[in-house]
C-alpha cells in the first residue's frame, strides 16, 4: 500500500476502495447463492438415512433396491456438500476476508487523513462534502457486510 501524498492520491485510493466495496457486495451475493445448494445437500445427506432408519425401525423396512438408491443419494449429497464447502465456499470466504480487510484498512487511513489532505489542497466545500459522503458509505469494521 502506497503513501497518500496528496489530494490526487487520496481520491485515487477512494475510488479503489469503492471498487473493492462493489466487489465485496458481489461476493456476498455469490456466497449466498452457493450456500443454498450446500445446505440442501447437507440436509439430504442427513434426512435420507434418518428416514430409512425410521422406516426400518417402525415397519418391515424399505426394500433392498430402495435402500441402495436412498443410501447412494445420501452419499452423493454428502460428497456434493463437502465439495461445495471446500472448493467453492471456503475460497470465496477467504477472498472475501482478504478484500474486506484491505478495504477497511485503506478507508481507516483515509478517515484519518481526510481533514489534513482537504486543508492542504484547499478543497472546496463541495468536494469535501462529497468525499465525506463517499467515506460514509463504508463500514467501520469488518463483519457488517456479511
Amino acid at each position: 500500500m502506497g503513501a497518500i501524498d496528496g489530494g490526487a492520491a487520496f481520491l485515487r485510493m477512494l475510488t479503489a476502495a469503492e471498487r473493492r466495496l462493489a466487489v465485496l457486495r458481489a461476493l456476498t451475493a455469490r456466497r449466498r447463492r452457493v450456500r443454498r445448494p450446500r445446505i440442501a445437500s447437507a440436509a439430504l445427506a442427513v434426512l435420507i438415512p434418518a428416514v430409512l432408519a425410521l422406516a426400518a425401525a417402525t415397519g418391515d423396512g424399505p426394500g433392498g433396491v430402495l435402500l441402495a438408491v436412498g443410501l447412494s443419494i445420501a452419499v452423493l449429497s454428502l460428497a456434493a456438500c463437502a465439495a461445495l464447502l471446500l472448493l467453492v465456499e471456503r475460497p470465496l470466504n477467504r477472498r472475501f476476508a482478504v478484500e474486506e480487510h484491505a478495504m477497511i484498512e485503506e478507508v481507516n487511513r483515509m478517515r484519518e487523513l481526510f481533514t489534513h489532505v482537504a486543508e492542504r489542497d484547499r478543497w472546496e466545500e463541495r468536494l469535501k462534502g462529497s468525499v465525506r459522503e463517499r467515506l460514509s458509505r463504508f463500514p467501520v469494521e469488518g463483519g457488517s457486510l456479511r
Partner: protein
Amino acid sequence: MPDVWENTRSRWESVRHAVDGGGPGAAVGAATLHGRLGLSVNPIAVTGEAGAGKSVLYDALTQAIRTGDGDSSRSPDIEKHATVLRSGSRRTRAAVTVIPGQLSTQRERALHDTMRGAASPQGIVHVVCWGHNRIWQRGAQRDVHDALAADGVVDQEAVRDWHLRKEAADFRLLVDAIIDGQLATRLRWLVVVVSKTDLFWDRLDEARDHYIPGPPRRESPFAALLRDLENETSLRLSVLPMASRLIRHQFLPGLPAGTSQLDDTQIGALRTHLGQELQTLITQRNED
C-alpha cells in the same frame, strides 16, 4: 449581565479547584449514571471524534469501570443505553446514544436515528481531548507520522495540532448543522466535555483557553465555533474538564508516553461535577 463565557470559565475553575483539593469535594450529592432499563425519556447524544474518549466517558459516568479492566477499543457501531441519573434523591431517566466518531454507514445510521428529521436529542455531550485522540490503527499512525514529517518535526505538539484541526473540522459540521436547523432540532443544551485532562492537568489553562471563548486575543477555531453557537442559538452551553480513567497515552509509536497526573479520588471529583452538571441540564429542560 455577566458574560456567559466568564461564567463558563469560573465554573471550569471551580471544578479545577475542587480537584486540586481546595473546594467542595466529590462528596456533594454524588451524581452518577446507573445502567438501568427504563423509558427512553431525555434522549442524549454523545458525539466527538474517533478515539476522543466517548465510550470510556460513558462507562465512567455509569461507574462501569473497575481497576484492572482492559482498555477500550474502536467502537464498531452505535452504543445505546437507557440509564438513570441520580443526584442525591433526584432521579432522572436518560437514553444515551454514543455516535461513532468515524465517517461510516454506522455513523450515518446513528445520526439518522437520533438526530435527523423528527428525531432529536435534548442534549449533546460533545467529547474532545485537546489533541490526545487515540489512533486505533497502525497504518493510520504511520500515515500521520509521514504527513507530519513531510511538513517538519514529528513531536507531540505536532500530533496534538493534527488532532485539534480534525476536532475543529468535526465540530464545525455539528455546529453548522445545528445552526442551520438540519440536525437536532429540539436540542436544548450542549456540553463540551474536555476529556483525558489527567494527561495534561499541568497545562489545563491552555486547554481551557483553547475551548472556552475568552479574552479575544487569539481565539481558537473551536472557541470561535462555540461563540457562533451561542450567538445563533438559544442553547445552554457548558464546557467542563473531565478524566474518565487513568491510562497512559502515546501520541505515536516512537514518541515518549505520557502518564496520568491525577489519582482516583481526583477523577472521582471530576466525574461528580460532570454528573451534577448533566443532572442540572436535564432537569432544567423538564421544568421549562
